[in-house]
């Protein structure tokens, strides 16, 4: 059976790999090159999240898949397993940390609560006087562009074709249009990220812009991925723009700092004011950061959905969607690909696919 995957971001590459492993004759098309879009702008965290049970199910499943193949990832994927410290500023947040630790442990995810002194010891560069933290073991960091390239090359090894600079103009059951002419295929997967709604009209995906800042190399500056516990509050709050503290040690010794969120369409310009706010937030948590040297800032666009869950499943006869992963596309790429391959093959997936159905009813858009 033939399948065309539209988009060679990390999700499309993973889907291509999974379908090729099932023996399909897969072609992965990208308008630019593998990982050129949101993937190349992503931080590269592989984390469990518990915004909802469905989010936890997909992130937990995917994280397990990443850890299972850690040994086979080449060095340029820069896979590391530093864990995540969800930093609590006050007692209220620490209570939240305790609740989350129970939630994770009940579901088999290793997590512990650090008190103020233990946190200080774990991350000496955090400011003093923080209440503590939730330490989630097993969360990983990878380098997304090369992870996508690796998944795609796995697909190619299994017989898939990867074509670059091929822009798909339209998708219909059984075919896709490229340069005005139709290419026949039994299965189409729309994995075009923020571009997915152009090909599947009505898909509720909106670009949510983010900025990242990366430093020069300072090995040992921090050891864990650091996120403020207020992250869910600030990151997913309604409203036009927000920042939250999120800092990541890279395998290179660099420090990667996020995050910002805003709905401004596909405007690629750097919002210096927002970057300033984002850095302020990071420096408030990690004062020593102020003196480190920054090499680069960049922007990316998260494919966001109204209920913060991706679209994975069939929308029309033989037409599937795997898109809308917001800021969790790197984490959930492998789980998404498995789920999608199971749906295509008619197997029963390991996790319940219904919460991610592209046909599920959507809440009202949450921003003006």
């Amino acid at each position: 059976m033939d399948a065309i995957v539209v988009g060679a971001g990390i999700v499309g590459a993973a889907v291509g790999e999974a379908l090729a492993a099932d023996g399909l004759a897969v072609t992965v098309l990208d308008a630019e090159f593998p990982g050129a879009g949101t993937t190349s702008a992503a931080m590269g965290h592989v984390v469990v999240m518990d915004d909802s049970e469905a989010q936890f199910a997909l992130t937990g499943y995917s994280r397990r898949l990443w850890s299972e193949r850690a040994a086979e990832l080449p060095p340029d994927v820069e896979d590391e397993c530093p864990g995540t410290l969800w930093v609590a500023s006050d007692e209220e947040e620490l209570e939240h940390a305790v609740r989350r630790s129970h939630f994770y442990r009940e579901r088999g995810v290793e997590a512990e609560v650090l008190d103020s002194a233990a946190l200080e010891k774990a991350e000496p560069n955090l400011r003093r006087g923080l209440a503590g933290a939730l330490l989630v073991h097993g969360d990983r960091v990878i380098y997304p562009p090369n992870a996508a390239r690796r998944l795609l090359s796995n697909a190619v090894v299994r017989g898939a074709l990867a074509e670059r600079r091929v822009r798909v103009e339209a998708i219909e059951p059984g075919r896709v249009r490229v340069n005005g002419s139709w290419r026949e295929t039994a299965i189409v997967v729309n994995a075009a990220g923020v571009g997915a709604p152009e090909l599947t009209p009505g898909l509720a995906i909106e670009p949510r812009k983010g900025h990242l800042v990366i430093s020069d190399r300072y090995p040992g500056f921090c050891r864990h991925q650091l996120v403020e516990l207020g992250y869910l509050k600030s990151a997913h709050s309604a409203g036009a723009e927000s920042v939250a503290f999120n800092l990541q040690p890279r395998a290179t010794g660099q420090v990667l700092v996020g995050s910002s969120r805003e709905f401004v369409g596909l405007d690629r310009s750097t919002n210096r004011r927002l970057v300033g706010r984002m850095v302020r937030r990071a420096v408030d948590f990690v004062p020593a950061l102020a003196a480190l040297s920054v090499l680069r800032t960049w922007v990316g666009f998260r494919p966001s959905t109204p209920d913060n869950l991706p679209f994975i499943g069939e929308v029309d006869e033989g037409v599937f969607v795997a898109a809308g992963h917001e800021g969790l596309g790197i984490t959930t790429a492998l789980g998404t690909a498995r789920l999608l391959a199971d749906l295509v093959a008619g197997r029963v997936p390991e996790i319940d696919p219904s919460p991610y159905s592209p046909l599920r009813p959507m809440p009202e858009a949450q921003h003006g």
Partner: protein
Amino acid sequence: MAEVFDVAVVGAGPAGVAAACRVAERGARVALVDEGFRPGGQIYRHREGRAPAAIGEWMARLARLKVDVIHRTAVHDALRLDGKFQLRAESVHLEARKIVLATGARELLLPFPGWTLPNVFSAGGLQALVKSGLEVAGKPVVIGGSGPLLLPVAATLAKAGAKVELVCEQARRASLARALPWLARSPRKLAEALSYQAAFGPSRYRTSTWISEAIGTDRLEAVVTNSARRVSCDFAGVSFGLVPNVELAVLLGCELRDGFVVVDRRQQSTVPGVFVAGEPCGIAGVDGALGQGLVAGDAACRDVTVTADVEAARGWYEYKPPPLLRSFALRHEVLELARADTVVCRCEDVRLSRFDPEWSAREAKLATRASMGPCQGRICGPALDAILGYGADCVRCPAKPATFESLLIPEDRK
């Protein structure tokens, strides 16, 4: 609160100094910002109290005038804000109604085996270090690469007492000869070239010659030329031309053509209020830079409104490389010197074998980390474009590494 200048000039080489002087002479409030610790830029680099006459005149003019000279300040971001321009540097955010970018050029370096050894410099880099006091007396030195720059560099080295063993020019003699009629029309240039050659000995200058390898263990010991001649040396200076520094212009949205900033006859870029002088709008040497600096300075402090139709009729000032530069066109052999294991990106140690000719600059960066280091692709970017045709990558702020602190908005700094 940032101070508002009438004009801010970035870069204190000849173009920037001339622009700042002219603005001050017209009575406007001007800031001259430069990364070095003394005005003069690369070409007018000098040590305290040792400025040659040509430089001294401009330095005296600058000192006489009311110009706020801000040294040791790298402008890492430039943007439009509330009808003004803001220039951001580590310790200051400057505001100005108009700006003049006189950011100069850097050298084109091409990878060859051994080029990363300590004591292999760029030609201009070696000259700069000598002007800052590098001791070369009695030491054997080889200069290589291509272009008119090699001559003054070799002359500087010879005057400082170095033994200039060889000056390797990759261009063919016949190609250089084509520039002779042009040189003959500017006797001063010809005299300059001859005096440089006299300084290090004309017989040391070899055309159709290049350094194919630098040899040493922990530092340079010798170079090998394309004719397999081994020349022992302590220092080498190698570069293949100039690359304009257009990063700030790009951040401001100025249009480029063939890598140079497009300017009109008043040196104004396609962004109103942003003037550009010197190498960023075309490699034209010191005289061109000084002249363009004066024009830019003049234009920046006059509020001349030019209607769109007049502007269109006049057309954009088209930069054409002078015939002299065309004579130094790079031969394919020097673009093919790197071996599979030769480092191309020096910040991230990315070797030639990692690069796929099918890529663009951006794809190469994402796949290999090339140009992700602190030089931000200033060295490997033009080299990869020359040898693999990758084109230019995008420019991101900060345009030079800067601290996290300096990215804060001023009200937010502590």
